[in-house]
């Protein structure tokens, strides 16, 4: 579903990603782990076509991100670090706009909006201005935005950041319920979250993948914390 081959991303002299390769199969939920500045967000931005890669190829659903960006973008739902919401629109207006530009056909639009409002728990705030919503609700609107065109691939950059414990549990439930039909990549700093939601973990450190395996294989009885610390301790040469 997602194939990344020898991906390199440089900003001027600074190398954010140094030769990353991995594959994600259909229906998998994969977590990106890594310290701040490891290159998680950059990798996600390249996958979504927001940033161009310096070297390497990225294929999503068989389409090359560089050659066929629009085909890839149709199939990806992306929740960036900051939910990309317009504060002067109501939740419904905003989601309707997103549905339009994501190419949801007019006939299916009402149903698509209904579905995401329901799943993301936005029923009560349908007609509220997004600027007036709490951080947790904005995050949910961001998630609804990523799901509105029912994409095959979901890329979520720290989906539970800034939420209260109850909301975190709800979002986790939501993500888990999307498993199977959707392929999901998410990044997070909360390690327990990974064990709860994901089957597979990619640990990124200083722009490289230092571990890529299922949780059971990685931990082997150890805690994920110690595995994470072991892999991100030393400087990568």
């Amino acid at each position: 579903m997602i194939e990344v081959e020898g991906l390199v991303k440089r900003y001027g002299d600074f190398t954010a990603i140094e030769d990353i390769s991995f594959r994600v199969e259909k229906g998998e939920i994969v977590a990106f782990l890594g310290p701040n500045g490891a290159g998680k967000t950059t990798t996600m931005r390249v996958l979504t076509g927001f940033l161009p890669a310096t070297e390497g190829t990225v294929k999503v659903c068989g389409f090359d991100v560089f050659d066929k960006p629009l085909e890839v973008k149709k199939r990806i739902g992306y929740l960036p670090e900051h939910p990309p919401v317009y504060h002067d629109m109501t939740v419904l207006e905003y989601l309707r706009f997103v549905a339009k530009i994501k190419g949801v056909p007019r006939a299916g639009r009402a149903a698509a909006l209904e579905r995401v409002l329901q799943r993301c728990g936005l029923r009560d705030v349908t007609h509220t201005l997004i600027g007036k919503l709490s951080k947790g609700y904005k995050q949910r609107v961001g998630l609804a935005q990523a799901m509105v065109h029912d994409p095959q691939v979901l890329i979520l950059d720290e989906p539970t950041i800034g939420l209260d414990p109850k909301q975190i549990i709800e979002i986790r439930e939501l993500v888990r319920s999307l498993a199977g039909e959707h392929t999901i990549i998410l990044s997070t700093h909360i390690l327990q979250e990974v064990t709860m939601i994901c089957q597979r973990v990619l640990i990124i450190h200083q722009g490289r993948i230092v571990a890529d395996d299922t949780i059971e294989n990685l931990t082997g009885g150890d805690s994920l914390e110690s595995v994470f610390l072991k892999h991100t301790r030393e400087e990568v040469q």
Partner: protein
Amino acid sequence: MKGLQDIFHIAGRELRSYFVSPIAYVVLTGFTVLTGWFFFNLLMQFNRIMNMYQMFRRQDVLMQMNLNEMVMTPLLYNMTIVLLLLVPLITMRLFAEEKKLKTDELLLTSPVSVTSVVLGKYLAGLVFFLIMLALTAVYPLVMFQYGSPPPEMGSILAGYLGLFFLGASFIAVGLFTSSLTENQIVAAVICFVTLLLFFVVGWPAESMGTTAGKLLEYLSLIEHFTDFSKGLIDSRHVVYFLSFILFSLFITKRSVESMRWR
């Protein structure tokens, strides 16, 4: 087809955004107040001069006086100055705000081409400008109602066409400067400076050599507006404005694309 729809969706959201914020109302009110005052002043002047020549019984001069030349043309010029000040305020948010709110990440990861985004935002600015122009239609209407003889319709329309091209060029510049930064004030200031520069770039033309002077004169936006304001539609000027707009939109597209490189 999808591209065209995208343009309308983006323009629609943008226009909506103008009218739910105070920007639209402040700009429209300001524009109408200022142009209304200019119109009033020009009419009073016209009246005074008419009365004066009537007292002197100068039929020959009176015959040559008309509302087109003495009210409409100067009014159009006054409007260009007001637009010079207001257009940067209309266009400054178009891209800068998206970057500030990080919503550019939504637009650029949606299956929408950068061209559609640029054209959608340009269309929104253009429609807003047309609303401004429509409000000023009341001035010619007053002259048609009370002027004797009434002004010439054709040359007023030509003048408005010129003003439309000029404003459309202003907006294209504003769109570009807004794509350069995430700070709206910076976008507005660069836009204003650029527009003013294109206004006055022809000034040293006379004191410079023929070739360089001609070139500067050709670059000047206002130079190409002059004929329109007198009621002449010359295809050379239309070509100038259209190329100016297309070039601005093209570099805007490039600038938006490069946002992701930076």
